């Protein structure tokens, strides 16, 4: 067991000084070993396409997808690190990037990022996550908005509504109208933990993004226990009451047929839901996409992004591969390609989305991102592990999902529990 101590001390020390890529990386043929969980679906297709781009530039692409939940991929990563053989790059996101970079040495990408002038075109909150210790070690790949509102055309028709709600008050009004018009369940969300977390963050960020930032992202105790959070819980309770009580732990896609048919009215989901609807055989005119409601009239963007972290390697070909990969990931054309396949929006705020291949939803989301960043109302998603490390996120989502599923918990109790959960998970 002494080897563990030695190893961890060493890793800790080295991790503090991520080493820059060696110059001899220029000469070797680039190769890249990649671990991700993107083995299927549109994510799988996108990463494969990126791999092709890598190969077109003369590189050897070695992607080992780890099927399963993200946790399984992290277990694999951990096993590889313990074995002394981390992949050249692996999928990682949010604050986990900072946490994992303390375990094993990462590559310092500052030079490459500066050369591409990349930092200027990335949302500051997002950039910060990928620069643990002030040095770029990871690069974001794509951005999703989690507070997107989807409305069922047929449900809107039933309720004889034509105005898209832009505030939570209007949302509530519309829900009541739908209910009165015979839409059995005005909210069509699913019952998973992430889903419950999403609903809360959409509400809180929409009600008051500044408080969201203080409470959820900075874990300020006063903000966490404050009236805005309480109001968010109250609104969440309304939303929960408008959901089908039989959601249990079902994925939201289970309810899409009823959503499209007008038995359920609205969906608070990430931008990916568009892809899910289309892949399920539904049509673009079955639903309307809108930004999530916000109270102060200015756009709010709750951000979720995937990224790759680059692990230090002594092998020259892997170093060359990492350099190539970093360059590819920062290029606007590749970000365009990636996002068009998955339905996300590019990380770069300077990509022109007016061409073909972009849906109206994506165009609108990208525009909202830019505007939200300009007024400092782009925040990080809690439910998708962007705002906090996994441990803290899980503790907070425990409270949120309990609140959604247990009508007996009042908003005051929920606030108290949230504060306690944060305190004990620190």
């Amino acid at each position, binding site marked *: 067991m002494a080897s563990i101590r030695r190893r961890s001390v060493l890793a800790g020390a080295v991790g503090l000084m991520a080493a820059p890529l060696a110059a001899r990386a220029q000469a070797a043929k680039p190769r890249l070993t990649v671990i991700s*969980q*993107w*083995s*299927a*679906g*549109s*994510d*799988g297709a996108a*990463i*494969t396409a990126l*791999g092709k781009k890598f190969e077109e530039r003369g590189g050897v692409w070695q*992607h*080992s*997808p*780890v*099927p*399963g939940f993200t946790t*399984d991929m992290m*277990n*694999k990563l*951990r*096993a590889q690190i*313990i*074995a*002394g*053989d981390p992949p050249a790059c692996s999928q990682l996101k949010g604050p986990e990037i900072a946490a994992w970079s303390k375990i094993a040495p990462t590559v310092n990408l500052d030079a490459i990022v500066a050369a591409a002038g990349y930092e200027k075109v990335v949302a500051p909150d997002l950039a910060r996550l990928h620069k643990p210790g002030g040095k770029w070690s990871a690069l974001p790949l794509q951005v*999703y908005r989690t507070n997107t509102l989807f409305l069922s055309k047929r449900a809107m028709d039933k309720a004889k509504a034509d105005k898209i709600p832009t505030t939570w008050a209007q949302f509530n009004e519309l829900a009541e109208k739908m209910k009165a018009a015979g839409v059995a369940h005005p909210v069509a969300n699913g019952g*998973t933990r*992430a*889903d419950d977390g999403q609903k809360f963050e959409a509400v809180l960020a929409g009600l008051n993004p500044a408080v969201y930032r203080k409470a959820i992202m900075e874990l300020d105790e006063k903000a966490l226990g404050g009236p805005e959070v309480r109001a968010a819980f109250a609104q969440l309770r309304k939303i929960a009451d408008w959901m089908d009580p039989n959601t249990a732990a079902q*994925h*939201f*896609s*289970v309810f*899409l*047929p009823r959503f499209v048919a007008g038995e359920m009215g609205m969906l608070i989901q*990430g931008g*990916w839901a568009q*892809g*899910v609807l289309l*892949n*399920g*055989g*539904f049509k673009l005119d079955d639903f309307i996409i809108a930004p999530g409601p916000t109270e102060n009239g200015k756009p709010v963007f709750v951000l979720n992004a995937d990224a790759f972290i680059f692990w230090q390697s002594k092998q020259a070909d892997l170093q060359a591969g990492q350099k190539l990969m970093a360059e590819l990931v920062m290029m606007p054309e590749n970000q365009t390609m990636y996002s068009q396949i*998955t339905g996300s929006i590019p990380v770069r705020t300077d990509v022109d989305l007016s061409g073909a291949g972009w849906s109206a939803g994506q165009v609108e989301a990208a525009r909202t991102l830019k505007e939200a960043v300009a007024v400092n109302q782009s925040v990080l998603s809690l439910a998708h592990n962007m705002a906090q490390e996994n441990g803290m996120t899980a503790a907070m989502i425990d409270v949120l999902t309990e609140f959604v599923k247990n009508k007996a918990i009042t908003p005051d109790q929920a606030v108290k529990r949230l504060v306690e959960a944060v305190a004990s998970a620190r």
Partner: protein
Amino acid sequence: MLDRTAPDTMPAWGRLLAHVVVWALGLAFLVPFIVVVLNSLRTAQEIAQTSMIGWPESWAFPNYAEAWSQFCVAQNCTGLQPFMWNSAAVTIPATIVSTLLGAVAGYAISLWRFRGDTWIFGLVVLGIFLPQQVRLIPWTFVLRDIGLINTLAGLVLIHTIQGLSFTTLFCRNYYLSIPQDLMKAARIDGAGFFRTFFRIVLPLSPPILIVTVIWQFTHIWNEFLYGVTFTTGSQQPVTAALIGLNAAIADVPQYGVQSAAVVLAALPTLLVYLFGGKYFLRGLTAGAVK
């Protein structure tokens, strides 16, 4: 040893009731499987548009072909086939070795007896309560130190050693019901440890060996955690490929092809039951206990 213990004096209505109850339960037990099979013949679109449980509208037999040889895990569009071979390469050796070693150990502990047998038995059996999760990281260190990370041999090692806890338990408790007279008779005849095992104990073992093989085969075949963590890429077992069809929050679940894949992946274990079942019924040499 008998084919059945029930006395012949059972009233006709009793037998009828027994039939009804058993078959009714049987039908209830089959329901989940029926749902999976039906889903394997529906298209993902149909499932997405109607409901998770339903009768196929159009019979999507191509789901099976796609599941077997076409669906893609990242760039590799080979379907389930290569992963099935990987699983077999791990499951068959691990099952055979752990069952045999367990039989010998169970025999040694219950019939042959030796000093410390109860203690070591208790210790080994206690191991079944050790949850998978806490073993994952220690195994990582062990496999790294003996150089077997990312090999199928590493998985075989893990499953064999872990399997010993179960196989020893099953066999030892079964062998307890073998009368000591047989052992005494063998000893008088001058038979040693191995001769007694092969001549007397093994022929009496088929029922428990079948049960043990079934347990080991299914648990190793269906195991996911170690399979995913300690192998990579095209080496992975079939459970990993199946999970690849599961939905992340951002995708349409491919329930049609996934159900077909589930059925295909379950075939080996189902076959083990069918084959083992016949052997089970045949029972043992009737003359052994004279």
